[in-house]
Every structure is written in structure tokens, then in C-alpha cells.
């Protein structure tokens, strides 16, 4: 196997690994841009993964069978949005501490998904899932074909979500309201922006994207559900928002860096390179921590009111 083949394999494996992280991190970016950080991302992903798994599991035959995966994604997004709204109720309306509420949501989502899975499905089992969709002609291009054009449809849509998120956040009136709600909610309020409503909307959108990220894990990547399927990816997604300086393009680069580091460490092991596997496994996480540590200035670009509840009746 040539060096070029090894690099191509790392890229071809790493790119789809990044999709779940990318979707969840983009959703979390909207949350944080509106001034709310949602540590419950992991729990929403668990619930999304579980609910997305159900339609293909139960609808193996019948008229709805061809639509099972689509129903799964729709259910995961809807459930994610509902959990996002629940989080908004607790943190925006009731002004509960966001960190504690997020941890609570994380445990709720993880526990509920696992319990419901045991009740309605039973043991671990696989599903057909979403098949790959190689793009005609483009997927045949040497090197770039397998890396960029030989994935499933959700992966393509997830990468298209990056410019879409940028457009929504920076080029639409709603995006401006979201940024205002996270940067200076009192000023936004005086300008007639309903801060509470905007934060609810952002959290619903963020929750829906986290739900989709979970659905990607169960429908596209593992093609099964298990209690621990998310395995810390929700927390990584939250870290990637800081890593990506609350900007879709940087978040994409962070998700790709993490996933390619993951693919690289797997390849290091598989190639038999003498390197303790314990350190190889740590590599992607250590890389994120290192980049975060060396990018402290990014705090300056973050939403100024991130994590602070807004109460229009309270004097500054």
C-alpha cells in the first residue's frame, strides 16, 4: 500500500466520521450564539439516535418501509427540538443555571433512550440503515472520488449545512437577532427583539440538529442502537464550538481535524507502527485540548453574554 493510498484511506474514513460531530456542533453554535450553552447535547443525541432507529426497526415491510429512514430522521429532529425547547423553558424562562440544567438534560436523554430501548426493542440489534450514495462520475475521480463523493446522502447534506448555517447566522435578520441575543440582549431588547423568543428558537434549532447528529450515528454510521452509542461525542461537539470560534467554517475545520486525527490514530495502529495504543487513542482528544489551550484569544470572539440568563426587569 502506497503512502498516497494510506492518506486517501485516512481521509475517506475521517470525512464521514466528522458528520455527527459537525451537525451537533453547528446546532450548539446556534445555541451559544443566542447566549445559551447546552451541555445536554449528548442526551439529545442519545434520544435522536434511539428515535431514528425505531422506524427502520419496526417498519421492515409495508408501505412505509421505504420511508423508514426518513421518518427516523424526522422523528429525531422533532424530538431534539422538543428537548431543546424543554431546555429553553428551564434555562431561559426559569433562568436555571445552564451548566447544571445541561448535565440534567444529558442524563435525562441518555437514561430515557436506554430505558425506552430496553422496553420497546430489547437487546442490541442492527438495521439496514442509510446506504452510501456514490455521486456518478465524481466518485470515480482518483483520490478525490473516494474522499469526497462516496458517502451517504446525509453526509453531503451535513457539509452543505455549513454554508447554510453561515448564511442564516450572518446574512438573515433572524441570524442577526440570534447574535444580538447572545452578545447584548438588553440592547437587542430595546431595539424590539424578543430575546426570550429568539433564544427559544435557537435552542429548538440546536436541539433538532443534535437529534439529527444522533440519528446519523444510529442510521448511517453504526446502523444499530446501543445505550452508549454517542460515547462522549456530544461533549466533543460542545468543545468544537469553542474550538471553532462560534463560526461554521471553523467548526467544520475542527470537526474534520478531530475526525481525521481519529482516523489517523486508527491507521497508526492498523499499520503496525510501534506506538503505544493508549496514546494513539488519546490523540484526537489531546489535539482538541491543545488547540483550545493555544487559542485563548477566541474567547474575545465568543458571545459576550454566553451562559448568562436575561431578565429584562433586572438593572445592570
Amino acid at each position, binding site marked *: *500500500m502506497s503512502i498516497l493510498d494510506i492518506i486517501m484511506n485516512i481521509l475517506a474514513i475521517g470525512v464521514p466520521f466528522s458528520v455527527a460531530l459537525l451537525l451537533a456542533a453547528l446546532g450548539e453554535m446556534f445555541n451559544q450564539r443566542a447566549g445559551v450553552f447546552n451541555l445536554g447535547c449528548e442526551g439529545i443525541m442519545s434520544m435522536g439516535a434511539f428515535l431514528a432507529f425505531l422506524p427502520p426497526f419496526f417498519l421492515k415491510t409495508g408501505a412505509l418501509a421505504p420511508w423508514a429512514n426518513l421518518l427516523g430522521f424526522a422523528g429525531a429532529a422533532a424530538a431534539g427540538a422538543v428537548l431543546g425547547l424543554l431546555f429553553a423553558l428551564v434555562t431561559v424562562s426559569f433562568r436555571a443555571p445552564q451548566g447544571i440544567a445541561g448535565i440534567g438534560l444529558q442524563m435525562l436523554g441518555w437514561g430515557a433512550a436506554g430505558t425506552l430501548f430496553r422496553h420497546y426493542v430489547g437487546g*442490541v440489534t*442492527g438495521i439496514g440503515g442509510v446506504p452510501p450514495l456514490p455521486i456518478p462520475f465524481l466518485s470515480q475521480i482518483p483520490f478525490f472520488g473516494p474522499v469526497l463523493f462516496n458517502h451517504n446522502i446525509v453526509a453531503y447534506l451535513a457539509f452543505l449545512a455549513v454554508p447554510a448555517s453561515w448564511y442564516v447566522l450572518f446574512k438573515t435578520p433572524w441570524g442577526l437577532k440570534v447574535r444580538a441575543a447572545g452578545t447584548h440582549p438588553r440592547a437587542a431588547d430595546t431595539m424590539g427583539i424578543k430575546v426570550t423568543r429568539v433564544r427559544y428558537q435557537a435552542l429548538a434549532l440546536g436541539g433538532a440538529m443534535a437529534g439529527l447528529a444522533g440519528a446519523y450515528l444510529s442510521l448511517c*454510521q453504526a446502523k444499530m442502537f446501543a445505550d*452508549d452509542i454517542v*460515547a462522549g461525542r456530544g461533549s466533543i461537539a460542545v468543545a468544537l464550538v469553542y474550538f471553532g470560534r462560534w463560526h461554521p467554517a471553523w467548526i467544520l475545520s475542527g470537526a474534520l481535524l478531530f475526525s481525521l486525527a*481519529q482516523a489517523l490514530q486508527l491507521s497508526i495502529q*492498523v499499520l503496525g507502527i510501534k506506538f503505544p495504543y493508549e496514546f494513539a487513542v488519546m490523540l484526537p482528544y489531546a489535539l482538541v485540548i491543545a488547540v483550545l489551550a493555544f487559542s485563548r484569544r477566541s474567547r474575545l470572539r465568543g458571545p459576550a453574554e454566553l451562559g448568562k440568563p436575561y431578565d429584562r426587569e433586572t438593572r445592570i
Partner: protein
Amino acid sequence: MKKAILVLAALILVIAGATAAPKAKVKIALIVESTVDDKGWAQAMHDAIVAVQAKYGKTLVEYNYSEKMKPVDAGSAARQYASQGYDIVICHGAQFKNLVLEMADEFPKTSFAFGTSADIGPKNVFTYMPMSEETGYINGIIAGMVTKANVIGLVGPVDGGDAARYDRGFVLGVKASNPKAEVKVAHTGSFSDFVKAAELAQTQVKAGADVLTGSSQQALGALRAVAEYKDQQIWWLGQDIAQLAIPEGYKAIAAASYDYSAVIEALINKRQAGVLGGESIPMSFTNGGFVYKFNDKVGPVLTKAVRAAAEKAKADITSGKLSIAWKDVKF
């Protein structure tokens, strides 16, 4: 001759002892970190206790279990079981070691057990250690014979405990049947990250592996990834028989399983004989600690020669003719 008769008599006594019904009611509790239907680690122990309970009846063997117990949570569950008079509390996983040692001190009349471990603990602590190099070796024999690419992938969880023994036994089995074959050993660093196991299996296949294996519950993710290669001759060797019965099992040539029944029966018998702990119970083909099964539905890949070689290896291991020097294998 006299010696042979004595050995035979001792063997009969041991077998009779191992299968004797409990003299009095015994209460067993199981604490696991995953769930009892995980098609892997926890389910194997649960199934064994249920089988022993079915054998002797619920009046003689009372059983209860607690799932999803992290080591920090398991203490309260273990304490409650011990307080309620459970005779044997099994904390299934080496991660429970510290907890068990602490509980053992607090409840000296209760027998605690944890594994996999070969440690000889306090007087009321048993350990159990599957000699997984045996099942790994047989799977390795098959993998070496089946591979066309001479590249074999091993999806390990961590390099420790019974997984380390399985992995090294597997490598020795491959080398015994096909010295030219290369085993690509890699670890996910987790027992339960199905997604990462699938990612690792994909990496192995892209690196040319056409036969894969793996242990612990995460291996199901790797098998799921192998099953994606529907039209390619890429095969799986399992460390859990439950994998043969699932839809992805069409890729599995054979699988081994732990049968903890021998451990459970030994725990009951030893306790009722007055031994509360202080011993390590090994699991091997010889004492019925393993079950090995071929997948007859897998098709022509399972040739008579493959089956015969695996059967011979199993017979040699069981009879003691073949010993596996797993500790000599360095990754």
C-alpha cells in the same frame, strides 16, 4: 494402575461435586455495568446464573441483578444485597475490584466475586479468569486458513484482562495455521463504543484485511461494519455465540462464548462447603468454561478442512496436549 484409579476417582468426585445440587437455599446477586441483554459480557454471566437457577429450581437458587452500575454507583447496590442476606454477590468486571475489597471487609460472611482477574483475594472474595487464549487460538486457526489476502484484522477493546489473552491466543492461532498471514492488532480504548469499533473495522478492511475478529460488547459494532461488505469475501470470527443468531451473523464463520455456569456452580459448592473465598476459579474448555460453535449457514467458506483443524485444536487444548504461551506474544 493404582494411581490411575485414584486420579479417576478424584475426577469423578470433582465432577460429582461440581454438579451436585445446593444443600440449602443460596441467594445470588449480580451487578453489571451494562445490561443483561447486551449480547456480550454481562449477558453471558446472567444467562449462566439463570441456567443454574433453572437447573436447581428457584426454591434453591434465588437470583437478583442490578444493571448499568458504574463502579461509583455499585457500592450502594452491593451493600444492599449483602445487608439483605445474599450469600454471593458477583460484581462482574475487574473495574469493581476496589469496591469488592471494601465490601468484603464490611460483610465478612458474604462471598463476593469479581472478574476477570486471577488475583487471590481476601477470605470471602473469589475471582474468576477465563483463559480466553484458548478460544482466541481456535478462531486464529480458522482465520489463518480462511484469509486469501493474508491480512487479518483484530478489533480489540483494551490490551488487558481476558481481551489481552484472547488477542494473543488469536495471533498464535493464525501463526500456527498460516505463518505468512499478518495480524493487524488495534484497540479502540473502550469496551462499549460500538461506533468506534465499526470505524476501526472499516479501517482494517481498507488496509486489506479480509478476516476480522474482536472481543467485548463493542465487537458487535465491528461485526456490523463487516456485514456492510455484502458482496465481498470478508469474514468475522466472534467471541460471543449470540453474534451467530443476529442478521449480521451471516458473516460470522464461528464464535466462542463464555459459559459461566461452571463458575457459578463452583461458587455455590465452595460456599456450601464452607469456603467463602480466597480462590481464583479458572475458566477453560477443560472445565466447561467455554462453548464453541460453527455457523453452518455461513456457506462454503467453512470447509471440512477448516472445521477439522478447529476441532483438532479444541481437542488438543481440552486434553492438555496443547498449551498456549500467550504471554510470549508482544504487540
